């Protein structure tokens, strides 16, 4: 058996080397995706263009706006009336407007205080919320500054001290890069395998394999082993880039990371095999792999979007998405450490899913023609 298997694996490797697109998926894809996400995608908003409308110039007004000029989160520009500022907001050149009314100084000294208007462009609501938070921060620092300067108790009744654990500088790269490894592994495991199996069926070379003495389990193993090795190679590349290029901290241990990744890769390969055993056509297998594995790994895995905030039925669906468990492990191993209370249940779920996918493939693939 082992000699037959060897032959098949050798054939598979020769095929991988001859058609560069498999190597591209395994090595070029991680490179491109990590570069794109590491450098291109950032949720850290700084220098947000903010319009300030001061209807009358006064010492109080410039004192107040100074806290916005000083903030590294804003890049301010002045407008003399609200109309012009709103036009600028519509065309996208500024994201928010702060309006200080004519009687700002006068009202400031009255018991009710002065209202300051903050107009947000709500189209990009995530940025809008972040701006609103930054404006509150600037207000708080102005209050502290003003109370110190005038000796007045101007402070807010309740102050919030925030502590962000595991990623105190809030670098979005620190969670995007580990999460992306799950997407890459899904691509290598599921998309590549689905395409490769479908190609054998489409070209008719599967029939040639079927008349050989190879058993079906040997055929499946012969496909699994080369692509498993290719996937682990892609993983090693991704981890190296995460650590040395993007400086994401690895607080857990490397062997836990690789062991869990191997587990996930087997699950992903199982998904790919299952897809190709149902769709024996490259176009359809590719589509199904993208819809069934790549997209969920992106959207439904908790990689970017919080799972608890999704509607109930979508949350139920996420339980069968293998990437969900892997993302939880990756984010924890990178940013927290070997936290077994997270790793063990998620690894358990991966084992279960791998068994289900491989079992279904086994049942679905018969050594016969239709």
């Amino acid at each position, binding site marked *: 058996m082992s000699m037959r298997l060897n032959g098949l694996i050798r054939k598979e490797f020769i095929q991988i080397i001859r058609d560069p697109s498999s190597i591209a998926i395994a090595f070029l894809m991680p490179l491109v995706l990590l570069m794109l996400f590491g450098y291109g995608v950032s949720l850290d908003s700084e220098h947000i263009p903010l319009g300030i409308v001061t209807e009358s110039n006064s010492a109080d007004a410039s004192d107040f706006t100074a806290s916005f000029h000083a903030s590294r989160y804003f890049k301010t520009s002045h407008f003399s009336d609200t109309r012009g500022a709103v036009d600028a907001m519509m065309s996208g050149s500024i994201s928010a407007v702060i309006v200080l009314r004519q009687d700002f100084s006068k009202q400031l000294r009255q018991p009710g205080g002065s209202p300051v208007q903050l107009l947000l462009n709500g189209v990009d609501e995530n940025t809008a919320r972040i701006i609103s938070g930054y404006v509150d921060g600037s207000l708080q620092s102005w209050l502290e500054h003003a109370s110190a300067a005038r000796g007045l108790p101007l402070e807010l009744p309740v102050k919030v001290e925030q502590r962000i*654990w595991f990623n105190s500088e809030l670098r979005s790269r620190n969670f995007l890069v580990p999460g992306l490894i799950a997407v890459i592994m899904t691509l290598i495991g599921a998309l590549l395998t689905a395409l490769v199996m479908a190609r054998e069926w489409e070209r008719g070379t599967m029939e040639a394999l079927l008349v050989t003495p190879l058993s079906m389990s040997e055929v499946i193993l012969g496909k699994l082993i080369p692509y498993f090795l290719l996937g682990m190679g892609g993983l090693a590349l991704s981890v190296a880039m995460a650590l040395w290029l993007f400086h994401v901290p690895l607080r857990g241990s490397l062997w836990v990371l690789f062991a869990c990744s191997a587990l996930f890769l087997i699950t992903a390969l199982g998904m790919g095999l299952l897809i190709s055993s149902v769709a024996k056509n490259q*176009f359809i297998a590719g589509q199904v792999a993208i819809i069934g594995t790549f997209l969920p790994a992106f959207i439904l895995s908790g990689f970017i979007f919080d799972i608890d905030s999704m509607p109930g039925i979508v949350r139920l669906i996420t339980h069968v998405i293998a990437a969900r468990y892997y993302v939880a492990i990756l984010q924890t191993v990178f940013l927290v450490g070997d936290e077994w209370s997270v790793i063990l249940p998620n690894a358990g779920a991966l084992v279960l899913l791998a068994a289900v996918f491989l079992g279904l493939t086994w049942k679905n693939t018969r050594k016969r023609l239709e």
Partner: protein
Amino acid sequence: MGKRIFALMIKEFLALLKDRKGRLVLIVPPMIQLVVFGYAATFDLKRVPYAVYSEDRGHASRDLLAAFKGSSSFALKAQLNDESRIAGLVESRQVLMVIRIGRNFSSDLLSGKPAAIQIIADGRNSNTAMLVVNYAGTIVKAFNSDWAAKHGSAIPVHIETRSWFNPNLESRWFFIPGIVGLLTLLVTVLVTALSVAREREQGTFDQLLVTPLSPIEILIGKALPGFLIGVGEATVVTLAAVLWFKVPLLGSILALYIGILLFLLSAVGMGLMISSIAVTQQQGLLGAFFFMVPAIILSGFATPIRNMPSIVQDITLVNPLRYFLVVLRGVFLQGTPFRLLLPELWPLALIGVISLATARWLFRNRMY
């Protein structure tokens, strides 16, 4: 010439739609993506699990905590009596946030001294962490202005926030117009990219070459079906956005379709370029993928272009999706007048013409 192209178009549509699986692939995946994106892609926080560790037994802290409990954004998981349990709860991901209130909170507040509370957030997903802190800040802000009103303490400035174009800051309103662009791109590029590769792989492309069709006729015959399918796709997704997801469509339909048509020039051009280079379907699919993933990520679909490093921002200038998304969001949510859309429309037209011309050139050179 027109008749020959028409015949080729009919053949293309037949090849796409002839078998049941092929038809399903055109209809089902975009629908699934629309539903998944529409419901799951959201930055609105709901039911964030949190724990409370409060050493204060006064009224004020109880009022503040009641405000958290009453919010649909948060779900109370545990009331801690022991400080040492905080770390365990956060590390094992049972809660995303812990509110910590010190012993003197109520007495500080009553005596007019600033009272502090601590918000601990799990930073594993730093965007969620920031939103959690912001949501908590909003609740504290409301508590502050209530307290100031009741106790006559002076906060000299209060901020009145208004969100234009999306008053309730719904994530869905931001993402769904973007999905119109995303799905139009995805379907059009896939259909055109694989059409030639499939014929090459199956050997029928040679048959096409010995027909009286000239290369340019073959190109047009391959381009038009992609174009028509793109328009159909955009229309269906727009209808779903308005009728199913109730996203407002404030601007003119005419401006929307001008945007769609100009964008399709680039999408079809890109698909044909990939098509003329790829020899197998796997290469075609891969090429489509290598084009689409950067196009989507560097378009402002999910994260603002402004946050990118300036060199990456320059790269996005050649990305047609970038302009199309501005047009879509402008027409849907802002009702942007046509004259303000012109700065987006002319680059779209330019990129479209260039990519079609390149596709034609590649096609002629890679044909034989």
